[in-house]
């Protein structure tokens, strides 16, 4: 039986889809079978980031409505054979998702895959609640910035009350992933520090993904960053996070400010 992981945040634009694709690819690279599911009905992005937008025939809503079988809707990644995508519909809206339908699809996926990663839409409405409803574990994506942190706090509260696990008295495993971390700005006090974020959210830290141009380049070519630029800082951070998800204990790499050659030689910034 596979594990259902929801990638959620509350706030939009913090890196949920990027994280779903990168973690999915990183887990698949270790040999596990992974399906990434896009729950953002009407505003789908996961297919773009995975580079599968030209192969979408059927989607999650079609499967829920019985118009297509799951095997017809699943798209296999061209680069990693154990990585699959179940895209969302672009033409419908979130009302087409039903709790019973989502439960059925997730149940089928759990039997076929080691990991079922649900990419939640932003917000706290129906789409986000259904994405987390059947989850065993959650990755809460947060930027080290006040509005993102407050929204993440809200979503953590909902994970503890609106999931099937919470309603039956069990706890859902929660992991915090800090994305777009810019250590230079944190040092200048323009961004919250890692300690501040951890103190406010009191949730175990899964990883720290540094702000990087590689992420944008990767999504523009339709590839998760862990596949297209494996040696880049964000890719390495995502791969460590994937190993932590699998239960390995990996020491946390805190991104440090990049210093140019002159800074290293003379230890000062130019006036």
């Amino acid at each position: 039986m596979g594990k259902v992981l929801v990638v959620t945040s509350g706030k939009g634009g913090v890196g949920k889809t990027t994280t779903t694709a990168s973690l999915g690819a990183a887990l698949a690279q270790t040999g596990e079978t992974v399906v990434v599911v896009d729950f953002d009905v009407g505003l789908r992005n996961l297919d773009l980031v995975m580079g599968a937008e030209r192969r979408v025939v059927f989607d999650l809503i079609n499967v829920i409505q019985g118009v297509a079988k799951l095997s017809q809707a699943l798209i296999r990644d061209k680069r990693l054979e154990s990585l699959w995508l179940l895209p969302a519909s672009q033409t419908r809206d979130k009302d087409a998702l039903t709790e019973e339908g989502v439960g059925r699809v997730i149940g089928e996926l759990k039997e076929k895959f080691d990991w079922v990663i649900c990419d939640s839409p932003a917000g706290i409405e129906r789409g986000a609640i259904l994405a987390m409803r059947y989850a065993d574990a959650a990755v809460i994506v947060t930027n080290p910035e006040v509005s993102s942190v407050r929204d993440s706090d809200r979503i953590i509260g909902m994970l503890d009350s609106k999931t099937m696990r919470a309603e039956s008295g069990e706890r859902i495993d929660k992991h915090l992933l800090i994305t777009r971390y810019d250590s230079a700005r944190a040092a200048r006090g323009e961004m919250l520090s890692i300690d501040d974020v951890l103190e406010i959210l009191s949730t175990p830290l899964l990883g720290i993904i540094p702000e990087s141009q590689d992420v944008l380049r990767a999504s523009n070519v339709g590839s998760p960053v862990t596949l297209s630029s494996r040696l880049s800082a964000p890719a390495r951070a995502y791969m460590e996070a994937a190993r932590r998800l699998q239960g390995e204990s990996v020491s946390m790499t805190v991104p440090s400010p990049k210093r140019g050659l002159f800074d290293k030689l003379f230890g000062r910034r130019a006036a």
Partner: protein
Amino acid sequence: MPLANQRTMRFLGRSYMAFVFTPEEPLIEWLAQLDGWLARSPGFFGGRPVVLDLANVKLHKPGIAHLVSCLLERDIRVIGLESADPAQLGPDLPPLLSGRPVNGNEVIALSRPEPAQAPAPPPRPQAASLLIDRPVRSGQSIVFPEGDVSVLGSVGSGAEIVAGGSIHIYGTLRGRAMAGHMGNARARIFCQKIEAELLAINGYYRTAEEIDAGLRGRPMQAWLNDNVMMITALN
């Protein structure tokens, strides 16, 4: 017609918590004060039950009706009246609430109500307390009118704790804490780190702007001294 199949109806009594407004004369000024509070916290009372205590005003039926409709214009719905002359009320006004609080689901015997029953004094609050052993997240609302609330963790921004007794937070208070909510002026609020949005004791409140900047980020306690809220550091 046999009555064998008639089921007996049970009428249960249940206690709810509501805000109580005690308007004072002149009413125009009181309404203006209310408007000022609403301007700072719009929609605060929207959807929450409000009771109107008319002890300090002398109003006849049209006056009471006008006051209720003024409040309705401000999106405040009055669900009951206190200290009103029963002769001035009618079916189109909120019902008169007696001062006798009912605890839990008490089954009330259907009997003819005695006329002019003097309201019993409120019973001494039971020493009940609620312990929450995890952080209170943004958007969550903990309401415990029966007594004290203790939180083993922080209270997130946008969360609120409402207690009949005192509030003890073993962590950082970033949301709102409202203690002594059922008329207990001796309730206090304690926390290990104060970054609160609002503190209130027995209805007297202070917003974040009014809390001394030198205290922020430190352990603190808040209590009422003659209806003025005192906030001091705990060490």
